[in-house]
């Protein structure tokens, strides 16, 4: 009997130290008083060491941080997130459905990662699959320029038909204004600034299935990303849905982000950051300690430089005007993705400053309507907050 009582007492002291049992309790135990006796779970600090309350109940992070804090033996986990930027992002996305990613282009470190509303099983930023709409034109432009494809197309108001059986792909202006005459003959710069569907539909067809497939592989769009690599905890961002066996006419809708291709908000942030970082894509990471690692080299230096200028023009005088911040050279691209039902998904992806990008921000608001009206203000507030936090110095 004494031996049994000793075993009982030993369990009372050893149980809370058994990492597998602690994990079991956090996942499955219904007794609230158990958790109180264990070290505060999911404790995490940001890159500066400030407490981070992303481990709020109900988020995907909860379990991840539980696992992480076990690997660090109860010490707070140090994440790459910035507590104040994260808090601002959470506040901006409150009441909306969607996702927000802010990452450092040169290191791949994620500074803010918001999935709204908080859900335990789906992190929209990492695993949500969405049609990218016009933000995909950034990828198309950079990929085409990297392959020395830089055409001039006639872009009339009646749009472009990739085959006889499909309706024409037209520009938004043509729908708004019946007297509009079209863009006429334009190059890629003007097309990206004004987000011309007619131009990019033709570019997709000209680019062709082989080169498109090569570009997708070069950017590793379909590969999942381990955002906690090196910490011993698995947290994976999904690879994007890239359809196989596309034929040239089918690339017309894909090139404007309305085809069968679906991307995660993180992957949009990743190719935006690749443009910002002179064509080099880094592994996205939530770990502050993990050293930066190159993931891919999807675009050439020259192509990335030209797309940067086009994105700058889009913010200065194009669709992204709402994000023009005095004293900060913001480069960005709006997106409005038709969903087939309900209002469109609103996208905006941007980075700043143009010369030495320090932060890339991607915002998705589900059924938010126009990217310029729903997503751009969120990104603008994030950039302003980053500026206040002196992230651009």
């Amino acid at each position, binding site marked *: 009997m004494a031996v049994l009582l000793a*075993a009982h007492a030993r369990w009372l002291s050893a149980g809370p130290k058994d990492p597998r049992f602690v994990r079991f309790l956090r996942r499955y135990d*219904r007794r609230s008083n158990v958790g109180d006796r264990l070290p505060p779970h999911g404790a995490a600090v940001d890159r500066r060491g400030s407490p981070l309350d992303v481990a709020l109940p109900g988020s995907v992070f909860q379990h991840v941080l539980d696992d992480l804090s076990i690997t660090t033996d109860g010490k707070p986990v140090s994440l790459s997130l910035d507590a104040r930027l994260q808090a601002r992002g959470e506040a901006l996305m409150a009441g909306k459905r969607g996702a927000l990613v802010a990452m450092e282009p040169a290191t791949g470190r994620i500074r803010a990662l918001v999935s709204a509303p908080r859900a335990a099983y789906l992190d929209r930023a990492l695993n949500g699959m969405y049609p990218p709409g016009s933000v995909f034109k950034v990828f198309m432009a950079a990929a085409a320029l990297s392959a020395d494809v830089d055409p001039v197309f006639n872009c009339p108001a009646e749009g472009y038909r990739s085959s006889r059986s499909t309706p024409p792909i037209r520009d938004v202006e043509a729908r708004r204004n019946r007297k509009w005459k079209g863009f006429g003959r334009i190059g890629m710069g003007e097309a990206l600034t004004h987000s011309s569907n007619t131009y990019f539909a033709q570019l997709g067809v000209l680019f062709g299935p082989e080169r498109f497939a090569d570009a997708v592989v070069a950017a590793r769009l379909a590969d999942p990303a381990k955002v906690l690599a090196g910490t011993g905890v698995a947290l994976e961002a999904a690879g994007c849905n890239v359809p196989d066996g596309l034929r040239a006419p089918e690339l017309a809708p894909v090139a404007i982000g309305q085809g069968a291709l679906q991307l995660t908000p993180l992957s949009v942030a990743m190719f935006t950051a690749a443009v910002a970082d002179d064509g080099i894509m880094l592994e996205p990471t939530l770990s502050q300690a993990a050293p930066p690692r190159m993931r891919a080299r999807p675009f050439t230096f020259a192509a990335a430089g030209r797309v940067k200028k086009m994105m700058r023009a889009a913010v200065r005088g194009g669709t992204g005007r709402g994000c023009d911040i005095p004293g900060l050279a913001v480069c960005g691209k709006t997106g409005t993705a038709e969903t087939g039902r309900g209002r469109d998904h609103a996208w905006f992806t941007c980075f700043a400053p143009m010369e030495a990008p320090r932060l890339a921000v991607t915002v998705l608001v589900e059924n938010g309507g126009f990217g310029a009206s729903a997503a751009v203000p969120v990104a603008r507030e994030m950039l302003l907050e980053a500026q206040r936090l002196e992230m651009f110095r």
Partner: protein
Amino acid sequence: MRRDWWMCAAVMTLAVFGLLVQVRLAGSLPTTEGLLPFAAGIVCFIACAIACGDGRAGAFLEGKGKWVAFWLAAALMAALLVFGHRYRGGLYLPGRINPSELVKLCMAAFLAGWLGGKSSTVKGLALCGVLMLTVAAAGDFGMVAQLVLSVAAILWAASWAWGTLAVVGVAGGMLLAAANPAGHLATRFAVWKDPFADMTGSGWQTLQGLAAILSGGYAGSGFGLGEVQAVPIVASDFVYAALAEELGLSGCAAVLALWAFVLFRGIRTAVRRADKSPCEALLAAGIVSSLAVQAMLNVAGVLNVLPMTGITLPLISLGGSSLVTTLAMCGVLAGMSGPFADAR
């Protein structure tokens, strides 16, 4: 020698406490599995105490008694194997009566009578082996474990050589392996070795039990205040987890101390009767060892120190047959403790 009233008081305290625990776990007074067996058990306790008093138990066992015990056990097991039906992996007679509980007492009585009467040990062990085979055939792993250990204890008390014990151990091990209902044994060993391998499946009950114990800590949440229903089927095998959550280590220590006191007084009775009636001494040793083994295997199983055997915590766990038999066994102990007409 006066009757051991302190032991009687301890047994009654445990029995009443067990009934209270069952009322708390069921949320109401359980009639068929709680109150009825409790009343029957009290009657059995008193009846056994009177019947076994004044040296009558020893005299009876030296005579026809051991055969009565043997054939009663054999008949019960035969009836179980013929008429039994399965419930939660165990075999039961109609009315969910588990007669193999009574086999514990019968076999201890038989072996005590046999060895106390200086008959051939090998033959007696062989007859016990037959009984245990029937229990193994019924697939009652925990009961076989209990019987083997109790036989070993009686042999040891009859000062038998370690070599014989080794033979009993080997034979018992083989019996245990035989009593393996549908691979339950392998599952229980697997859970014991690594409860996390299938934490939401076979390891669930054990892990929830351990969580309950941990949440109880040293002082417990208070009687009736724990979330004990988080442990599946908490009222029977895992009642120790409920005690640990609501009464803490201190409450569990009190319950185990009461049991230790009862067993200690049983051993004292055995020692005192060793000169007058070896049969009674061996019977007391058999009963004490059987109850001790039962309590320890149960608690060790809940603490995951040993694999779960599926046996109950005597007097506390839900189970009518077990309650009645345990009270009867304690009654026999009480009867053999005194008073004796020839003592002065």
